[in-house]
């Protein structure tokens, strides 16, 4: 994804991606262990069972804000690509509103429909990315990836942290656990999915460096798109940017939907709503507004995604809150009969 190539660009960025995947994998493994404690409840329900009502409220607010915020960032990021690359004359807001409305509709339909849509679209997205990457291996230059670790470990770690922040999205599962089939008792799919996504990321970033090289990638806003532009298979399959657009729309759409849905679950729990769908439209409107207001232009958005900002922000969600909950559980589990296993 274009946003992942933010920050320092150098030929070792794929090593950074591998590092990020490893970090994300460990991180999500811890999250999976935590999720096992909830016994099929949402994190908010778990906290309330622990007797930490106020903490539950605070965490609920944080998760709602997080959901809407990430949805709005994704909306903006997505719309910016559309405006920058495909539709120079169309206003940004058109793409934001159309996508947000679709996402709202899908989130309104509930988790069952979301999952079915995802099941349908997911193979297309993954297959498309892999095909693009394979096609780009065709014309790349192996020299692009050398020399390895030219500037030492520091930029790799920095790049790894940047990308690790995006794997933190799996924390959204904390709100979706009740929807899982009750036969699922171990949440090993969390680290596994992160590792799979990490593998895809490594492959993608590697293809970019391999295909167009570090120096060109540095100059482009959307290196991956530049890579797609270069693709030419037997001088027939060319100009597949439209294909890329389909992948791009579908994947972002799913992400936005899921975050809006999670935000609505969290809000619904917060205010004890019988029907969480009532808050969905306000949350969507909020996300649309934020997507327009938060950033003046695309470079600001990129600046926000620097490790100093976004990774710190994300570590609140994926490190601080889980750590807090873990401490709370350790302290309180003896007091609440039946909680200790």
């Amino acid at each position, binding site marked *: 994804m274009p946003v992942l190539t933010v920050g320092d660009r150098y030929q070792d960025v794929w090593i950074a991606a591998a590092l990020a995947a490893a970090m994300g994998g460990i991180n999500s493994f811890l999250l999976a262990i935590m999720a096992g404690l909830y016994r099929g409840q949402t994190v908010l329900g778990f906290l309330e069972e622990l007797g930490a009502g106020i903490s539950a409220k605070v965490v609920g607010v944080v998760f709602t804000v997080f959901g809407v915020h990430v949805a709005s960032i994704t909306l903006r990021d997505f719309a910016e690509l*559309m405006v920058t690359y*495909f*539709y120079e004359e*169309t206003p940004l807001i*058109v*793409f934001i509103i*159309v*996508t947000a409305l*679709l996402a709202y*509709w*899908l989130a309104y*339909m509930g988790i069952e*429909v979301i*999952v*079915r*849509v*995802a*099941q*349908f*679209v997911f193979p297309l997205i993954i297959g498309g990315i892999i095909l693009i990457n394979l096609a780009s291996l065709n014309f790349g230059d192996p020299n692009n990836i050398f020399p390895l670790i030219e500037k030492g470990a520091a930029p790799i770690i920095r790049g790894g942290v940047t990308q690790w922040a995006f794997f933190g999205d799996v924390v959204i599962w904390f709100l979706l656990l009740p929807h899982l089939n009750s036969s699922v008792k171990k949440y090993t799919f969390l680290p596994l999915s992160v590792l799979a996504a990490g593998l895809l990321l490594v492959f993608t970033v590697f293809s970019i460096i391999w295909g167009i090289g570090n120096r060109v990638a540095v100059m482009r806003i959307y290196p991956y798109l530049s890579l797609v532009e270069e693709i030419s298979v037997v001088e027939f399959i*060319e*100009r597949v*940017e*439209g294909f890329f*657009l*389909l992948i791009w*729309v*579908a994947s972002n*759409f799913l992400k936005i939907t899921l975050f809006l849905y999670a935000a609505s679950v969290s809000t619904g729990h917060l205010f004890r709503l019988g029907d969480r769908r009532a808050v969905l439209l306000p949350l969507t409107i909020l996300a649309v507004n934020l997507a327009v207001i938060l950033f003046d232009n695309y470079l600001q958005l990129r600046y926000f995604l620097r490790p100093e900002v976004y990774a710190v922000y994300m570590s609140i969600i994926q490190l601080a809150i889980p750590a807090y909950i873990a401490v709370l559980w350790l302290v309180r589990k003896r007091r609440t009969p039946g909680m200790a296993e």
Partner: protein
Amino acid sequence: MLKKWKNIIKKVFAKPRNESQAIGGGESKEPVAVSLESNIKHLKAVFDRCTDVIFREFEAAIGGGVKTAMIYIDGLVNKEMLTDDLVKALMYDVSGINSSAPVSDPAGYLSRSIIAFTEVKVHDNMMDVVHSLLSGETVLFVDGVSKAFTLSTQDWVQRAVTEPATENVVRGPREGFTENLQTNYTLIRRRIKSSRLKFETMKIGAVTKTAVSVGYIEGIVNNKIVDEVKSRLQRIDTDGILESGYIEEYIEDAPMTVFPTVQATERPDKVAGGLLEGQVAILVDTTPFVLLVPVTFPQLLQASEDYYLRWPFASFIRFIRFVTLNIALLAPPLYIAITTYHQEMLPTPLLISIAAAREGVPFPAFVEALLMETTFEVLREAGVRLPKAVGQAVSIVGALVIGDAAVSAGLVSPAMVIVVALTAISSFSLPSYFGAFSLRILRFPLMALAAALGLFGVMAGLLALLIHLCSLRSFGVPYIAPLAPTSWRDLKDMFFRMPWWSMFTRPRMTGHKEPARQDYMQKPRPPRRRPGGKSGQ
């Protein structure tokens, strides 16, 4: 306030139906009288001004002569049979029987020993008599007996079993359902010779009293689906059912969608296949279209021939069908989007030739496409409706208009003609006419989206379509079932048609009660010499 208006509207429009409309004048549960005259008088009152109802009075040669009367509807009965087996028999043949001795149960005696018919029913109230008469049975009254005998003499003019008009096959049975319910039962029963095949019949329609039958295979079908079908059918309260389309609209899950969630088919083999996979068939008298539920969208893309051809051919045809599905839905929108917004996606030589062809065209691509698509739909509709004699004229004019004239007049570009023609052919290559219909309707909004937002618009439209498809259900089964929720086991009969010996299981969604279709290990292999066997000889 809203409630008040609702009540007012209810009062004006939704008057409770007149009882006589439902039952008809003179039909009541009145008992059959002892006297022949009064029975005839009653029926003559009921069938006042019905010229096709025939009353025939004669004297049966029992015990020195008993006054009898038979009543039937001309055209619904087999007259030869009546003359030979009823009138002749009663007037001459029974004269030899000495029955002057008093009989304790005259009605039973008559139906057991005198009336020589295979199927005789005894009724004691006039409403049943009227209903049997209307469904083609002959009523026999005997003076002094307060019962009515109805004889199954139904025989009316009907179409023979012919090849179905909508779903043609190269390989496979050529029989299609007919308008006669009994024939349709036969067509299915001949394919499934099992006592587990059940048909439950009910009458729907207050005036038409159409026989509607629910067929399923006990043990394979999910009983909940059968109960749901029956309860939805019983809920129907209308004056008449003339075609299974009426039923379809009353029982479907999503009444507002363009996609059919009930499958209508003319092919008995398709119905038999569906029954074996746990579907429920709804047969309606007077129409050759049988409904199958629950149905999924991929099933609408499958033809019964897929299962008769060898599997590589069938899989190839399936693949072609997915291509044509996409062309039928997407070709015009993509053409509009690419020529309007994304010209850079075309290879340069192609772009130049398209641009040159569009040179003199006065309209934007969207208007052009709309024009041609509308013309085509008009031609298609005209082709269905027009009298056979003028068919040729219209097709010649149509070909000229859609092909040559429009281009040479400079109204549309040749590329557009190709796109529209391809789309038209593709949409008719789908096996389900009704499934293809929904795609044809959806093409128009997608074209508008493509004109407004280019590829993004098409993508947004497709996503909306996907959300809609994913949210649909047909009798509890998700509409795009083997795809999402994904069932790996069922994907073998989705994009490909795997060999028969490899399809061990019935579809998970409908056949999970008895999942095993057949034994494993049926792949044909060369015969092996059995130890000590006779194969060596």
